[in-house]
């Protein structure tokens, strides 16, 4: 237990260092933008007075290290500044859009895992059969498909032609279906591929043969002896894919006018609302890092061998 605690503290410190570096890089990049950052942040229609106010508000009249110190202190207090477009606190802007993105990402992840893992197991047990070839072709299709095109095609078929599902928005439960399917496809394909290759590896092992020779039920061998041992690499992919889902959400949310932080990011970039861009980038990085930490902790649960390694 003490070991777990030490490991956790170690990882959290490492995570804090990484996020600190990310914050520093974002801070520096934003300050080295061509032109006067205060003017850029204030926008095209700002008056001289606005620019002066923003300059002192962001401490741009102070030396760079002092600026970063103040910025870091602000961050630690959970203050991400004020949106240049709406003058609302960035934290509030992000918080109001956050649930929609999380809902979309979780729905996609559940879909991808619940279809991808069984599909991968199926392909591995029927290796080199026509079924396996079919699943591999589907995987290739999934990893080559641009999410934004898939979204448009689904809208065309299911919203424009068949009129089964809404094309945009998030006002009805059915609105979630098309965006979730769109966002899930790439992760689904990668999870299928990883499950297949990991299962193929495990099914070759001696203990699988032993289990079968003992006369255990085939399904029991497949899941209890096979999948449980093949799950570790799959878990890694699940974690990484959750991060990639957040990236893909930017495009999916744009296609479906889904009111999440991905679309807020794009709108903010187009409007040159840098405080919001900076805030969302930091939130995404923190979320990605937390998910990966969670995955590493789950390793210990899935596989006792890596516990405390």
């Amino acid at each position, binding site marked *: 237990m003490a070991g777990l605690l030490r490991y956790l503290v170690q990882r959290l410190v490492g995570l804090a260092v990484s996020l600190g570096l990310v914050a520093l890089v*974002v801070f520096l990049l934003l300050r080295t933008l061509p032109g006067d950052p205060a003017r850029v942040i204030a926008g095209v229609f700002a008056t001289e007075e606005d620019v002066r106010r923003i300059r002192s508000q962001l401490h741009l009249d102070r030396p760079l290290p002092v600026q970063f110190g103040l910025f870091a202190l602000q961050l630690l207090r959970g203050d991400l500044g004020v949106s240049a477009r709406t003058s609302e606190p960035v934290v509030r802007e992000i918080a109001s859009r956050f649930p929609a993105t999380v809902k979309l990402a979780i729905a996609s992840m559940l879909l991808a895992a619940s279809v991808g893992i069984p599909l991968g197991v199926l392909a591995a047990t029927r290796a080199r059969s026509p079924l396996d070839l079919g699943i591999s072709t589907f995987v290739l299709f999934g990893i080559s*498909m641009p999410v934004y*095109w898939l979204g*448009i095609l689904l809208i065309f078929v299911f919203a424009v032609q068949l009129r089964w599902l809404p094309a945009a928005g998030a006002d009805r439960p059915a609105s979630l279906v098309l965006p979730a399917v769109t966002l899930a496809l790439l992760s689904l394909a990668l999870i299928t591929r990883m499950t297949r290759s990991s299962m193929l590896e495990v099914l070759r092992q001696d203990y699988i043969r032993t289990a079968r020779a003992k006369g255990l039920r085939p399904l029991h061998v497949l899941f209890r002896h096979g999948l449980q041992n093949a799950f570790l690499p799959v878990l890694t992919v699940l974690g990484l894919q959750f991060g990639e889902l957040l990236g893909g959400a930017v*495009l999916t949310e744009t296609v479906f006018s889904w009111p999440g932080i991905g679309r807020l990011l794009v709108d903010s970039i187009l409007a040159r609302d840098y405080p919001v861009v900076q805030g969302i980038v930091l939130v*995404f990085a923190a979320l990605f890092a937390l998910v990966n930490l969670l995955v590493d902790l789950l390793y210990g649960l899935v596989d006792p061998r890596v516990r405390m390694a």
Partner: protein
Amino acid sequence: MASWTRAYAWRERPERVEAWGRVLHHPTALLGIAILLGWTLAAAGAPLLSPHDPTHQDLEQVLRPPSVEHPLGTDHLGRDILARILHGARLSLFIGVLAVALGGAVGIPLGVLSGYYGGLVDLLVQRAVDVLLAFPTFLLALTLVALLGVGLGNVIVAVGVSAVPRFARLVRSSVLSIREQTYVEAARALGLPDWAVLLRHVLPNALTPVIVQASLGVGLAILVAAGLGFLGLGVQPPTPEWGAMLGEGRQYIFHSPYAATFPGLAIFLTVMAFNLLGDGLRDLLDPRLRGTL
């Protein structure tokens, strides 16, 4: 002594030549190469295949379905979609290859140095890689473009930089094991300077996974660059770029699906070709890597 080491390095050559020969007998890789060859010819012969100017607007002929005059129809400004896709192929292949070349040019040396020397170099490089890996690929490219600004050059830099960490990680892990091989020890014992050991013995042996990664990477780079274009944050209009065409065509999907369908198909086919090629190369060059990239 120099000639001896050169002979040693050359000895590996026949195997590699053989591997390239086998590519042509591997159905997956062959299909990928065939599609890419088709795109290359189409890009090179764009003016011959479609007589239309890809930026010429004809407001009398907007959003027309395919016809003899316009085999893939016209977009919302009456421009010929076929001409725009063919000219777009030049751009997409250019961006994809150049971005990966940039990612490799930065990432491979970083990975070699980091893996070979270890210690402080390794620590610094890996911290930098960690910062880049703190973002999902598309988000990293998007953030860089947001900071650098839109346009062809910045898109290539943004997509290239987002490919750096993958190359650096991959090469570092190969170099870590190559470093311990007896032939590296022998080269060092012979008194070869570090750069010669790295260039002649370490790097060539670390390249196999890099070739696979590069092929898959070009596909990913095209996907990411077109995604930026789709959001209006890539190569700017009126340049015919697949992602931007898709982004513009999307608004007219209720009237005419062609303007959004064909550019998407072009992106899909190109990315698929690079994936096929990458998968094929992986099977041929290093079966152990199957499923890991």
